[in-house]
């Protein structure tokens, strides 16, 4: 049946507009303009910094990709040479591979451990806040300090790991000196450093979940694993989504620990993309353009991976 429009006849027929359509349009425009202006006013302070120290530098960087020469030496226009070189350079391939391998090791481990700890922490009725603080401690460590601390962990003779291994009657491991181990050791450091942050994040999300659903599931006879698999994971989707994307963005930028612990070695086994960018811009100052092109390559890589993840995680 069709809709029926009724006007309230008893209080008079539809009135006349008091403003002409033109006046309305003008007033409306002015109104929207004012609102837009207000919104932009709120954005201006952030935008100033954003433009000055992010947008312009990125523009700069792009400009550099077509030039040779450094920040201090005169620039020479070289066209697409830097871009070509990026795709020809063996170390670029190696560093991208290392970075991806690192991400594949670090992200799942840190998430599994963090989720497990968060679930356990949620069960702790007492002392939860103490444990939370303790777990967060590594995250608060400056890299410079973390690397120092890790000397005590991975050192050949008096590192905690090897001392434990020797106590257990095993051979000591060449943690950061062995090309096969070094990236794993770096991963270990990053996982150790990252677990606290993600644990707290997951814990916060867990606490926020509606309890009724769990009660209902318990009534339905779901066991702990089933509840985790079919309730917790789907309910945490937004958090996990955020975590995966952010972790990818951050971990693809691995640099500090490599720079301090191994400086890319041994045999370039811990050479990561950002480390290589850093090398080309500072150690070999005539290669700034190459570093810039490599930066954009990394940016694209991150963008593509993040988009793939967004696709995979959003839809289902």
């Amino acid at each position, binding site marked *: 049946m069709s809709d029926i429009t009724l006007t309230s006849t008893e209080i008079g027929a539809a009135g006349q507009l008091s403003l002409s*359509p033109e006046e*309305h*349009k003008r007033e*409306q*425009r002015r109104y*929207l*303009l004012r609102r*837009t202006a207000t919104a*932009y006013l709120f954005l201006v302070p952030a935008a100033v910094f954003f*433009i000055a120290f992010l*947008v*312009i530098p990125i*523009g*700069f960087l792009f*400009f550099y990709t077509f030039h040779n*020469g*450094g*920040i*201090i*030496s*005169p*620039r020479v226009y070289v066209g697409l040479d830097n871009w070509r070189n990026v795709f020809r350079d063996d*170390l670029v391939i190696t560093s991208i591979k290392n970075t991806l391998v690192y991400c594949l090791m670090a992200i799942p481990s840190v998430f599994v451990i963090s989720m497990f700890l968060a679930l356990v922490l949620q069960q702790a009725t007492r002392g939860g806040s103490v444990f939370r603080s303790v777990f967060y401690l590594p995250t608060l460590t400056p890299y410079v300090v973390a690397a120092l601390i890790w000397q005590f962990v991975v*050192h*050949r*003779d008096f590192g905690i790991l090897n001392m434990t291994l020797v106590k257990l009657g095993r051979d000591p491991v*060449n943690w*950061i*000196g*062995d*090309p096969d181990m*070094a990236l794993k050791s770096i991963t270990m450091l990053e996982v150790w450093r990252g677990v606290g942050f993600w644990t707290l994040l997951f814990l916060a999300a867990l606490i926020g979940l509606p309890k009724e659903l769990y009660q209902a599931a318990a009534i339905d006879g779901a066991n702990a694993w089933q509840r985790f698999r079919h309730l917790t994971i789907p309910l945490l989707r937004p958090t996990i989504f955020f975590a995966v994307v952010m972790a990818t963005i951050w971990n693809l930028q691995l640099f500090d620990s490599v720079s301090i612990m*191994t*400086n*890319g*070695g*041994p*045999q*370039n086994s811990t050479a990561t993309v950002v480390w290589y960018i850093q*090398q080309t811009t*500072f*150690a*070999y*100052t*005539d*290669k700034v353009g190459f570093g810039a092109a490599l930066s954009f390559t990394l940016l694209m890589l991150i963008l593509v991976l993040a988009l793939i993840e967004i696709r995979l995680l959003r839809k289902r």
Partner: protein
Amino acid sequence: MTDKRLSPFDRAKLRREAVIDYSRHSINRREFMFKMTAAGVGVAAATRIGDAIAAPAPAMGVKRWAKQADATIRFVKGVHAANDAEIWDGMKAEFEAAHPGITLQPEFYDWATMPEQLTAGYASDDPWDVVYNTDQVLARWVSEGLIADITALANDAAWAGEREAIAPFTWDVVNIGGAEFGVGVLGAVFNIWYNLDLFEAAGISEFPTTRADFREAAIALTGDGVYGFELRDSAANSAFWDWFPWIHNDHADILSDDLSTQNVSPNGAAGTQFLGDLQSVDKVTPEVGAYDWDGAAALFAAGRIAILHDESWRTTAWDAGDGLPFEYDVAMAPFGEDGTKQTAMGNFGYATISEGSENKEAAWEFVKWFASADVINPYAATIGLQTVRVDSVPEYNNQHLEKIQAELVPMVQPPQIHVNWAEMVRTMWPEVEKAYRGEQSGEEAMANAAEIINGLV
């Protein structure tokens, strides 16, 4: 069509907001506003970028900000001792007393981040007046026009005596393209330390001077928790310093004498192979990469390494206090294959004046003062480094340093001066590391290294 020029987001936005009566005209307005803002931002950005690009690249000359008092000399050097800053407090006082009107401001960079710090410093409006630059990076800064040409000052007749007192090889180093860019002052020698007690216990009386003897000794010394030999092996620990004497002694170097092409292949193969065999075949060393630089030094100090290729300044710490619980001595790597050449590696530092300095004359006064025997010798003795003066030696209270100064410094073969030297060494190092691990022969390593080096010449 205006719609075409709107971004998909904007169009979606309009649809959603459903400003149904919006005429094209008003959309135009909005778009116009939007574009104007964008254009404004763009222009501002472009101006900035333009300014930055148009500005004389190394921001020399004009100083727009707080001009320093005319006679303040800012001097930066790497940290050479834990108490370097304190030492320089005293030296500052001495310098200023001797040079009224000039203020000295000593500052320090961290060796690990030297490239970043110096790059930033040179690129700033206010570079240091005097920079202590090592031979590895000197050529790079010179090629970028950052370092003042001091040929005239250094060849001033009034200073000729002093000039002659400074080792000739240093003048070769600072001579780049026919002009001179610095004055040699200090350096470290990369030498071999060996544990006399362990040698005695193994029945070896003389430090070996041939590779065969060296190998035999290393094997004999290994065992019972003691490693016969150790040297640095990772780029992160500047392992190339310990490697160079072994290829130098075979008449190899990174580059040919005229710096036009590489000179590691095949000359460098023998020494590299020898070091690789010691580590991966004879296993007289800890596993490659097991210890970092300090770890190895500590292991030597603990009496668990018999022969350690390391740097000269270690001895200062070892001889402090009660000293090490054993006797140790200093030596050079054995002769090369043909038995004609034995060298030590040395890494020297040069006082350079920045092109951007506004007080070049005062800076030169400081450089002269710093390089003078009365200043550099006591300083070198204090921090345990070597000097490059030929007329006098520091009064070390350490016999090892005395020996190094007397016997090894003259044998030093310094790094070659090339713009890309640091990059070459860094980039080719993984090849040597592979040879150390026995994953490839010295010959293969050198062939691969040669390719890398040629790519950078």
